[in-house]
């Protein structure tokens, strides 16, 4: 159980999918006051109205500089915020930045009360990045598959080869030239288009 289920947590993330994943994680951990802010305009006014204890923000949004305005108490800011980590906690700050996220807490809130939130955030951000990388890789593999098939078709047609021989020829060329099969396939397609 979290130390503080009632802490008001705001998530500022331009990726709705990641925000949803994080929101779900925090709720599963027992936090009940989680608010996702999608709009990038009037962010400070929204934050002011919500008056959160913790703000979690992704590093890909320029809105981070808006949040940093809250370091100073002003008419717009009731309670100043600070970076989550203090000087001594450089490993946490490093892990957070590396995962692509930062968190701010209202001044005076004890570090221990917020630690589980940040840990959860970092792990969810990492999981999301991994997911995205895998998706990217699958997409690339699919694209490469298509390229290889097209190049094979060209070879079969131009050199009157059967499928297995065309494929073997490409693979042998790739090995000889120390290149990837997909690159050789791309060269064949480019050359064929130029010679059209």
């Amino acid at each position: 159980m979290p130390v503080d289920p009632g802490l008001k947590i705001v998530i500022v993330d331009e990726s709705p999918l990641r925000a949803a994943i994080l929101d779900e994680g925090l709720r599963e951990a027992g936090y009940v006051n989680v608010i996702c802010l999608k709009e990038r305009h009037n962010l400070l006014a929204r934050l002011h109205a919500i008056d959160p204890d913790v703000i979690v923000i992704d590093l890909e949004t320029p809105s981070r500089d808006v949040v940093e305005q809250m370091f100073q108490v002003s008419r717009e800011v009731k309670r100043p915020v600070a970076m989550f980590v203090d000087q001594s906690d450089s490993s946490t700050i490093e892990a957070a930045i590396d995962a692509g996220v930062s968190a701010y807490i209202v001044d005076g809130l004890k570090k221990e009360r917020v630690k589980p939130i940040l840990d959860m955030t970092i792990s969810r951000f990492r999981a999301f990045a991994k997911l995205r990388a895998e998706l990217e890789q699958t997409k690339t593999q699919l694209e490469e598959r298509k390229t290889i098939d097209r190049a094979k078709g060209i070879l079969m047609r131009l050199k009157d080869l059967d499928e297995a021989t065309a494929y073997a020829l490409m693979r042998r060329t790739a090995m000889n030239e120390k290149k990837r099969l997909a690159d050789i396939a791309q060269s064949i397609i480019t050359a064929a288009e130029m010679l059209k």
Partner: protein
Amino acid sequence: MRRLAIGFIPLTDAATLIACAERGFATAEGLEIDLHREVSWANIRDRLNVGLLDGAHMLAPQAIASSLGLGHVRVPLVAAFALNLNGGAITVAPELHAAMGATGEDLATGEGTARALGAVVRQRAAAGQEQLTFSSVYPFSTHTYALRHLMEAGGIDPDRDVRLVVVPPSYTVENLRSGLIHGFCVGSPWNSVAVEAGVGRIALLGTELFARAPEKVLGVHARFANAEPDVLRRLIRALEAAARWSEAPENRGDLVRLLAEPRFLGVRADIIERTLTGRPDVGPGGTARTDPDFLVLHRGGATRPDPRHALWIYAQMVRAGQVGYAADAVQEAQAVYRPDLYDAALGLAARPAAAEGDPVGTRFGEAFDAGDSDSVVAYLARLGRR
């Protein structure tokens, strides 16, 4: 080859860094620069802090605020090279500009513009209209201080009579169009982008407020400066050569094309060129407001960090209520600027004490003639901040 990771924000004044990496100046010093495009000043500071960046394009006041630990974790930084002077402008919505014109003040001058703005703010208050909102790019920035200086010169209290907020440059056009803000102060090319989009009008060039305002510096972590002094010296030499190249008219075409590339600014080349030559369009029909010093990359010793600029920045922080005055902090702020490292890198003899006069060239309002902490105190006293 020593590889360095350098962060930048897509702005015209990243020119020297980009040219340094892309036109062989780094290589000539045995350095290989990987440029990392960042989306926020906060990211730049944090990535420098944890060592993911070796150096970065930074707002000069941000480098000082980070070193003083204002508002957040203290990140001791060193500014041994100034990337530019000036380059910002104040843009307002066309309706506000029209209202300012209707006051009968002379908008061709900075003082007239300040008085006109003051008059409009008072008219709106008397009529019970919503207060005007202005944005800058970061709390600790020359842009924030320029806006506040303009307001005060117009008899406006920037904390009570208007709202000052932060809006990232890439969002300013949309915010101005939707009426969430009525004006902003940002660096190039964003003022021109708003003019081009037909949503804003440049009311004043930054140089109409301050003739020589500190703007961006190369920020490096103090840990890096101490551990690898030789690498820093090589970087300063490479940057100095890149800054000289960037400002030479014969290289402008090449530089403009380079900056316009999507991986750097991703902004139309002609807009960047007008910025670099100090003649940005200020309003519909291509009316220009020109100043050859609108953005200075190299000439007139612009790249040598001037510790009096650090003093001025600290004074503006106190003036804006961002920090209470402390004699120790004055020294600390000044120590962020390291002309000694710059001189050593470029083989220059140590220079005599700084020149007399106002280091930022205040055009109107209270002049800054400070060379030491006593004069900072006197300046703040004249402004009623001490």
